[in-house]
């Protein structure tokens, strides 16, 4: 157990009307931005973020400091900062809390980031459904502008910064950064071919940095503490800081928890989220949004080689490996958004899989054939299996379709569909074979363990 840490990102969540400027300021908001803009150099600020080793909080886990380093502004170009608030990955609900409960932290982070990367305009792209969060941000931005923290001369210095909120209109794919840029520009949210990467040619053809809400919201703490100190909050090397963990599904206390990077899934479920509903056995957990391959607590880490990055956890359950971008990749899954979906033994994994694949079919933008067709075929096969019309070969067909989707499309959406599909079949093959022979057993629904709570006496 590493040192306990005090809440940072969520420190102001409990304050009365924490979203109002006066209340947030009493609790320290904008002190770091003021100091950064009036007495620090942009290059210093970039160095702090790089030393912080903050891995992008949107799901890909790319080091934000490295991303910022890709900028190389040419004559006549303007740099944009785009904050990705298109939180849509199934199971993920952390960014919304920042926007609703501490919008000034995000705005302060955006101000410092703009100054650090030589941008004068930031767009916050909020998913269309979050009308309430959008309004809260707009009010907070107006307050900050009124106070002189935004506009022509933020904190009195000669460096104009403006922040605008741009609302999406319902499309998961717009969380993909180039699809987001198309949507920002008034186009269909279809991902672009890379390269060029956004840092070279992004919004409106200009160099652009796209960062997740939580990443930008962490910038004030990084600058205040210093990158190195902030990085050392983590229990893992190369993956700094603390972050917001989410838990949904069959736990006693679903919700959000701020903790150091590198706690284990077992800690998250049993210590933080209060354990399993009704003390039922944990069957499976999707660690960081639906695109991350499932973990099976019965499976042991197989890393006998001393040089294997997970050797330290050889023989332990998958859920005892610390949650980090690199550790989870070594485990064959991804940390993703760090918001876990927890399932107990009442869940039929084929049915759960069908639910998620239906999502991908609905959300595929349709641009690339392997993805557009593949997502549909996966659902068709799973529908057949669940309805008892399947055959054992169908299980291999799921694997085959998935393998043909991976790596054959413009963006990572198809991989994000195929990887969890393959993970499900790999880890729960027996259950798939059983369903292929007999369909889903009568009366199985995956809300069985909460039915009494929901239906109640009504």
């Amino acid at each position, binding site marked *: 157990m590493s040192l306990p840490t005090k*809440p940072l990102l*969520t420190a102001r*969540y*409990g304050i*009365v*009307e924490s979203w109002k400027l006066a209340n947030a300021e009493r609790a320290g908001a904008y002190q770091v931005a003021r100091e950064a803009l009036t007495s620090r150099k942009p290059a210093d600020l970039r160095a702090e973020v790089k030393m912080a080793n903050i891995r992008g909080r949107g799901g890909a886990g790319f080091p934000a400091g490295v991303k910022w380093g890709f900028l190389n502004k040419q004559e006549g170009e303007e740099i944009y900062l785009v904050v990705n608030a298109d939180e849509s990955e*199934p*199971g*993920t*609900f952390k960014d919304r809390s920042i926007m*609703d*409960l501490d919008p000034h932290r995000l705005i302060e982070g955006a101000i410092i980031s703009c100054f650090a990367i030589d941008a004068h305009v930031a767009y916050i792209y909020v998913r269309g*459904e979050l*009308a*309430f969060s959008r309004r809260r941000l707009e009010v907070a931005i107006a307050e900050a502008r009124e106070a002189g923290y935004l506009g022509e001369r933020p904190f009195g210095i000669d460096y104009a910064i403006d922040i*605008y909120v*741009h*609302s*999406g*209109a*319902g*499309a*998961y794919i717009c969380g993909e950064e180039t699809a987001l840029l198309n949507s920002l*520009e*008034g*186009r*269909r*949210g279809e991902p672009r071919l890379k390269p060029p990467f956004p840092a070279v040619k992004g919004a*409106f053809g200009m160099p652009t940095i796209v960062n997740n809400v939580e990443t930008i919201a962490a910038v004030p703490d990084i600058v205040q503490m210093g990158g190195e100190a902030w990085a050392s909050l983590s229990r893992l090397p190369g993956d700094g800081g603390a972050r917001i963990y*989410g838990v*949904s*599904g*069959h736990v006693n*206390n*679903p*919700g*959000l*928890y*701020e*903790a150091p990077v590198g*706690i284990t899934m077992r800690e998250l479920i049993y*210590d*933080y989220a209060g354990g399993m509903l009704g003390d039922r056995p944990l069957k499976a957990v*999707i660690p960081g949004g*639906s695109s991350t391959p499932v973990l099976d607590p019965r499976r042991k880490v197989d890393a006998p080689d001393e040089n294997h990055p997970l050797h330290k956890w050889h023989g332990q359950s998958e859920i005892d490996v610390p949650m980090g971008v690199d550790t989870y990749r070594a485990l064959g899954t991804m940390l993703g958004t760090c918001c876990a*979906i927890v*399932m107990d033994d009442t869940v039929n994994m084929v049915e*759960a899989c069908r*639910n*998620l694949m239906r*999502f991908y079919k609905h959300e595929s933008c349709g641009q690339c054939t392997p993805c557009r067709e593949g997502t549909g075929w996966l659902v068709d096969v799973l529908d057949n299996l669940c309805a008892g019309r399947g055959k054992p070969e169908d299980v291999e067909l799921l694997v085959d379709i998935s393998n043909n989707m991976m790596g054959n499309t413009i963006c990572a959406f198809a991989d994000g569909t195929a990887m969890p599909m393959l993970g499900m079949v790999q880890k729960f093959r027996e259950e798939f074979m059983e369903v292929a022979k007999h369909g889903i057993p009568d009366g199985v*629904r*995956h*809300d069985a363990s*909460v*039915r009494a*709570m*929901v*239906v109640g006496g*009504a």
Partner: protein
Amino acid sequence: MAFSLTPEREQEVDDILTRYPERRAALLPVLWLCQRQNGWISPDVVEYVAKRLELSTSIVEGVVTFYTMFFDEPVGENVVWVCRTLSCDLRGGKAIQERLESKLGCTAGHTSSDGKFTLLKAECLAACGQAPMVQINDYYYENLDLELLDRIIDAHAARGGEAAAAEFSTFASYRAPTDGGGRSGGSVSSAPPPPSREAVRLASQPPPPADEKADES
């Protein structure tokens, strides 16, 4: 009849245009303004937007049809989105949908016969820790059970969306406990308990049971 925005909204379009280096980027925000006024994106709206932003109608239509929240046909007074993605389904999303269908008398994808509600299935709405949930118009209603759901729907039918939101929507639960005043009803405690170990429970935890809220309102 040709569509046009109210003078206030026209003003807003002008303001929106200043935010972007390219005129076309105003397309999504302007479509939102139009849908707010008109209820849906009718062919008249498409023509108006195309003209206002100097785009072809096919470009505008292509964008409208890409995004699920732009309605290309009329919808009911209230639009109910029921989340059926995994986190909600694990906590009873299916039961919520079934109840809505029987209460509204229409299946998902349709509008009730009195025109008051359109019921739509939604994909993950980023409220997974507060499942099951529905979105009605602009607002989220979380930690549902069937009894609470019934009251929310009844409030919409009787008093309209804004009044129902003030009483039941989750934004009310974001108000801290000492903030007793303000909006009528629905004052829900959201103070995090003392930090346990390294963790801090956030305000997204379930609000008190529905009957407590009833007592206060």
